[in-house]
């Protein structure tokens, strides 16, 4: 393995956001937001450059840090999967950056305020950490990346300083720390058996022996706690609902995808021969439970933000249905293919749709002073853009064409039919119906005629509504990539 041309872009993808963090922190005050804006633009440019480089070379980008070869040194590696995630995250971060300008501007007359400084610094921190998760080719560096991500995400939950968000943040932190230490335990075992922490080398050396199976189980369990897959999901709803809307969008849309991506990376790239069919079925079984439980509980929520948070719990379940569907019955190993593409498409589509939904819910909360669903009657007349954004995001989650959610479910259903696992198809269809239930519940309430339109407590920043709508439209149109010729996912695999 040697450094490929353009590999330096991977270093930039990780370090530009981190340099932004350092600059925002040191300059402080209003400059933190300015630094964040500049960094976001730079980071978007780098993400596009990475995608272009990979598409052009047709192979993965590799970078050997320090010039040292593996296994002694650390390699960064970006294949098609990583590129898709890097691009998706960059786009959503741009949207959140624009949205948050209205919420986290430093008030005039104040040199530096707590919430804005913390938000802008940690937004960039989350971004850099996510990029590191996507491109790192070393298991220990991935552990550090997971911890970076946790430390950056947890304080955003308790940003408003209330007791219940502090409690939610502490609970999130404890689950996340348990998750990372279990992941590290698995990494340690793998080093003890194979003498390397490099993903590519491990992929070549790994055998289905007891220690390896134990390591795989421990790492997966740890990552499931961080991804809030049922039954380890209890921390998520209060945390994501209690955070400020811009933070909820980051947490639900992006941060969750980091630990999920690691499960994909491990199962498909390190353990494809080691994972067994029953374990894949178990993982998808937990996913199915998440879909059912998450959706049913979402239907019963009285508050909009909590409903959206429980919707996240359900949508995470879909991300795990792909594992048994990717198991090739002939070779008994995980093969990238339609199921993998479906899972990735779902991750990207959910990231944009959920961010849009939280943004819209945030606008509604700020405008009305509350987010009780019962009190939303007639709001479609005063906040039409936000309601439209929320609905389009929901439609993408339900899986109607031409949304990304539709394409994702299409691919997963096709894989289910091809491998004869019709029960997962049934789960997906039921899940879609339940999702439709609460999306249309909100929509019906918002469009209720006869009720007098609620008074707006505060003027609504049009930029916030516009960004929410833009992300929701993006999610609705993602399904159209099926008609393009871009075949990213297979590059470098």
């Amino acid at each position, binding site marked *: 393995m040697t450094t490929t041309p353009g590999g330096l872009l991977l270093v930039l993808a990780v370090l530009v956001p981190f340099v932004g963090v350092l600059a925002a922190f040191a300059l402080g005050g209003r400059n933190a937001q300015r630094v964040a804006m500049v960094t976001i633009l730079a980071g978007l440019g780098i993400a596009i450059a990475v995608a272009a480089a990979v598409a052009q070379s047709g192979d993965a980008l590799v970078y050997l840090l320090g010039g040292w070869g593996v296994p002694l040194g650390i390699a960064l590696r970006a294949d098609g999967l990583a590129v898709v995630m890097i691009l998706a995250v960059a786009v959503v971060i741009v949207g959140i950056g624009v949205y948050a300008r209205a919420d986290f501007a430093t008030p005039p007359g104040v040199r530096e305020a707590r919430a804005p400084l913390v938000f802008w610094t940690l937004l960039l921190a989350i971004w850099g950490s996510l990029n590191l998760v996507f491109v790192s080719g070393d298991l220990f560096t991935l*552990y550090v990346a997971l*911890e970076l991500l946790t430390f950056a995400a947890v304080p955003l939950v308790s940003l408003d300083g209330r007791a219940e968000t*502090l409690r939610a943040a*502490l609970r999130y932190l404890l689950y996340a720390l348990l998750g990372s230490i279990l992941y590290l335990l698995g990494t340690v075992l793998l080093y003890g058996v194979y003498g390397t922490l490099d993903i590519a080398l491990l992929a070549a050396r790994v055998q289905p022996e007891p220690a390896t199976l134990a390591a795989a189980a421990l790492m997966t369990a740890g990552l499931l706690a961080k991804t809030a897959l049922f039954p380890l999901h209890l921390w998520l709803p209060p945390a994501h609902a209690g955070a400020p809307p811009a933070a909820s969008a980051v947490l639900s849309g992006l941060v969750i995808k980091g630990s999920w991506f690691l499960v994909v990376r491990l199962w498909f790239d390190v353990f494809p021969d080691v994972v067994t069919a029953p374990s894949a079925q178990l993982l998808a079984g937990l996913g199915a439970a998440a879909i059912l439980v998450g959706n049913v509980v979402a239907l019963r929520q009285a*508050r909009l933000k909590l409903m959206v948070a429980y919707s996240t719990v359900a949508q995470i379940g879909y991300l795990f249905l792909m594992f048994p569907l990717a198991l090739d019955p002939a070779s008994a190993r995980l093969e990238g293919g339609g199921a993998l593409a479906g899972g990735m498409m779902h991750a990207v589509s959910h990231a944009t749709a959920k961010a849009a939904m939280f943004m819209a819910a945030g606008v509604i909360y700020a405008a*009305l*002073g509350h*987010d*009780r669903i019962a009190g939303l009657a007639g709001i479609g007349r005063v906040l039409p853009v936000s309601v439209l954004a929320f609905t389009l995001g929901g439609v993408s989650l339900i899986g109607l064409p031409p949304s990304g959610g539709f394409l994702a479910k299409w691919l997963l259903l096709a894989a289910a039919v091809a491998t004869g696992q019709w029960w997962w198809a049934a789960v997906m269809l039921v899940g879609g119906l339940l999702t439709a239930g609460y999306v249309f519940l909100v929509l019906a309430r918002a469009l209720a005629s006869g009720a007098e339109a609620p008074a707006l407590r505060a003027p609504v920043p049009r930029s916030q509504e516009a960004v929410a709508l833009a992300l929701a439209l993006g999610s609705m149109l993602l399904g159209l990539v099926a008609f393009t010729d871009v075949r990213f996912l297979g590059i470098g695999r």
Partner: protein
Amino acid sequence: MTDAATLFGLLAAALVGIGLYALIVNPQPLRKIVAFNVVGNGVFMLFGAIAHRGAGSGWGGDPVPQALLITGLVVAFSASALAIALLLRLHDVAGSATLATDAPARVSPDGNAADA
């Protein structure tokens, strides 16, 4: 030399189990933080036992795991610091230090979620 590694490897396994039990069972967040540290120590000790088994080239242990252990200890310390700070702030604001799952769906008359 291998016996020390095996002994401490088994001790590490026991520590991970003890810490995991405590993390699940103890209701007090501070005890959970202590339990997390016990699990962490177990993981680090296992890594250290593996490092000792890899001794060679004139050194007492494989330097790569030992170096990574130092990184791990620093990360674990930072995690404990953040958790303790969160816990103390929760105590200051709420007067109690429990993680009792209070559903924030409790709604006060003005429509905002009430503090638990």
